[in-house]
């Protein structure tokens, strides 16, 4: 009898000590965050992937930082300037220490660049930002970066590489995952990572910049949107990203919860094939005979754009969580042109344009897109098909998993050319430099020079190409940006691509927490206050 009583007592004590322990930790400023995905590694140089990069900014700093709209800010470099056409000089911030206490000097920069370009097994390395640049140490706090051709975007490239302590230049990715080597200079110190379960970071009290509010942050990956919302409402977590559109109205009405929304630079676009070389099998006349792509005629491309009711897509399909687009950049973002407005729905004018182009009888078209890759992608594609059918283009839709789509999209056709006539895909500028979408989608495809890797519809305009190349060769960034905006205006008026909308990014938190959001849809923990 006595024995079992003792057992009960020890059990109760044990349990209450567990509870007591967990409740005492609530007293410090802790934050629990649920994100939709988790990084694939804690090694900041392992994979150039959005979630990895946004997490890396918490533990590490780059020479140059980006604000919420990807404007460049001084980071581990306190200033930078071109000293001639081919060379940039970076003045490093003095007195910065890594989390392990080592002082930050120019040695660390060169060591980082050596490592970041050559991480073994990397599924997408940072070599793109490092190759072709020469790094030269001038003194402990000065570094020069030179290239063979003028490159005004070296500061942008440098904003992508997390600086590590040179002592860990030979460390493996595993060393970073386990925390042996993960010492940065960032606002948080890495504490632990249990893959699939949680990441823990702690405040860096010696941070050189604005100190963060939280002592500890625990990040939990919760893939399912409804579960994420439930975790917030029940108080399991304090902050979530990507609120499912269907849960948003409820959260907004709910007491004790704040919701944050902002138009992101993540856009959805249609690409229309505009050459006849090679002919693609997805346009047919009304007798089912294959025809050359009607979209070689700019009037037909305009007709498609006018036939798409972007506002209806936003209201009915996206639950208001998209903003109709007429260019790559949302308002307030680099490369934005105030002269380009999204096309307003006008089916009458679209039909007139079709008649002018000689297609008054219409034709048959199959459009393609990924399923489950972008928010509501299949429903949007179906809506567009209906809208096109109503102006006389009998449109059918074919969707497929993203893994299948992207291969066919890039090289599923004859001789490994792109396969589709009309396809829908998404884009977000990761680099924060305005020529990025122009170089990838708009410039004539020139594989060797790295131009037009995403130009799958054969758009080519010598004037636009020249503007892009001139802008990219001008060391004066603001002069260059004017050229890029000009190039964007010409290309968008010729419907080189048809932007549909920018996605509205969402976050939610318990009352009292604020989040500073901008054009980026990934979550930056140091902006939570």
């Amino acid at each position: 009898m006595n024995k079992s009583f003792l057992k009960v007592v020890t059990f109760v004590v044990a349990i209450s000590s567990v509870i007591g322990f967990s409740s005492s930790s609530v007293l410090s400023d802790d934050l629990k965050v649920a994100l939709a995905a988790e990084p694939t590694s804690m090694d900041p140089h392992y994979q150039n992937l959005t979630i990895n990069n946004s997490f890396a900014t918490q533990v590490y700093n780059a020479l140059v930082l980006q604000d919420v709209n990807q404007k460049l800010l001084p980071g581990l470099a306190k200033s930078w300037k071109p000293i001639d056409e081919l060379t940039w000089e970076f003045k490093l911030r003095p007195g910065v220490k890594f989390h392990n206490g080592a002082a930050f000097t120019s040695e660390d920069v060169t060591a980082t660049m050596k490592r970041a370009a050559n991480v073994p097994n990397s599924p997408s390395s940072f070599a793109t930002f490092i190759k072709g640049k020469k790094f030269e140490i001038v003194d402990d706090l000065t570094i020069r970066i030179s290239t063979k051709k003028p490159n005004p975007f070296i500061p942008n490239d440098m904003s992508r590489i997390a600086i590590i302590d040179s002592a860990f230049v030979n460390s493996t990715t595993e060393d970073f995952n386990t925390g042996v080597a993960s010492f940065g200079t960032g606002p948080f110190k890495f504490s632990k990572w249990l893959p699939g379960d949680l990441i823990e970071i702690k405040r860096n009290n010696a941070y050189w910049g604005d100190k963060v509010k939280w002592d500890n942050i625990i990040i939990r990956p919760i893939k399912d949107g409804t579960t994420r919302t439930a975790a917030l409402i029940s108080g399991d977590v304090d902050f979530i990203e990507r609120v499912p559109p269907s849960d948003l109205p409820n959260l907004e009405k709910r007491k004790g919860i704040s919701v944050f929304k902002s138009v992101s630079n993540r856009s959805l676009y249609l690409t229309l094939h505009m050459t006849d070389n090679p002919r693609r099998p997805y346009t047919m006349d009304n007798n089912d005979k294959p025809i050359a792509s009607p979209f070689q005629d700019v009037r037909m491309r305009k007709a498609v754009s006018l036939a798409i009711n972007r506002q209806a897509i936003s209201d009915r399909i996206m639950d208001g969580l998209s903003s109709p687009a007429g260019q790559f950049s949302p308002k307030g973002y680099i490369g934005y042109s105030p002269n380009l407005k999204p096309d307003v729905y006008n089916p009458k004018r679209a039909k007139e344009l079709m008649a002018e182009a000689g297609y008054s009888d219409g034709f048959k078209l199959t459009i393609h897109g990924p399923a489950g890759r972008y928010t509501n992608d299949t429903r949007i594609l179906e809506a567009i098909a209906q809208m096109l059918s109503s102006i006389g283009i009998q449109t059918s839709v074919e969707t497929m998993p993203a893994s299948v789509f992207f291969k066919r999209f890039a090289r599923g056709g004859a001789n490994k050319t792109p396969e589709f006539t009309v396809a829908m895909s998404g884009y977000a500028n990761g680099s924060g430099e305005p020529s990025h979408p122009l170089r990838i989608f708009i410039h004539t495809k020139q594989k060797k020079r790295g131009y037009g890797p995403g130009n799958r519809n054969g758009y080519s305009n010598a004037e636009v190409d020249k503007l892009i190349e001139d802008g990219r060769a001008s060391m004066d960034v603001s002069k260059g940006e004017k050229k890029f905006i000009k190039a964007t205006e010409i290309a968008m008026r010729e419907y080189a691509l048809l932007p549909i909308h920018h996605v509205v990014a969402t976050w939610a938190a318990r009352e009292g927490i604020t989040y500073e959001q901008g054009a980026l849809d990934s979550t930056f923990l140091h902006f939570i206050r």
Partner: protein
Amino acid sequence: MSLIVFFMINFVGDPVDMLVNPESLPEEIERVRKDFGLDQPAHIQYWKFLQGAMNGNLGNSFIFGRPALALIVERFPATLELATCALIIAIIVGLPLGIFAGLKPNSFGTRIIMSSSVLGISIPTFWLGLMMIIVFSVILGWLPVSGRGEIGSFLGIQSSLFTYDGLLHLIMPATNLALFKIAMVIRLARAGTEEVMSFDFIKFARARGLPSKRIVRFHLLPNILIPIVTVLAIEFGTLIAFATVTETIFAWPGLGKLVIDAIINLDRPIVVAYLMFVVTLFLILNLIVDIMYAFLDPRVRVKGEDQ
């Protein structure tokens, strides 16, 4: 088996499209293709895979850059504890209810048990999971929504079974996963009970005036257990292999999440290694079932000794 899996998955898309950031230069795409051996024809890739497999190396994950088998083994304990708890819940709840239903086929209780078992079989797991979250976490606030909770260590084994917090986290996903199995155990136990109760030895036992408790425990139970053990052992395999939906909803850091992400992102080595792993698991479970027969059914044992 490995041949089928390997070539099937080779037909789907191109992992390089899913891995390499589109802003990368063309050299980078070529480098990744070469580093991962994707520039080789499929049969050579398969040959290399077989060579590695002979040495216990099923290849490196494209995404994590670590051995696929190690990743699977790392995530396995979480899934194992979830599946084990689900199985235990299924037996503890299902067996008594099923026997009751078999003993008293016409009672009111049986009708309730049987109709709710129909619900258990027909309600989709994900919907029920979400409903459980809404009721027990959001409205009542009793249980945590997701994750594995605190992990304790006992005799060198790490599991959330050993902490109070971990147990709280385990209840909902395990029950969710168990629900379908509970319904199944009820049906098996009821069918078995009805059949066995009509046998002569039960009638004799009754005639000898044994109390019904004793009849159920020593005469009925061992006889209905054989089919239940067979089915449950195989079902245990499916619990582990297909806990995916439950794991996704409750953000349980087990195998399911790993595999779903691997399929979406075309991380071929993980998918192949996972299927190999599951096949092996089923083989082992079948072996265990055969051995357990010997314990449960004396006839199997006696036969062996006779020869």
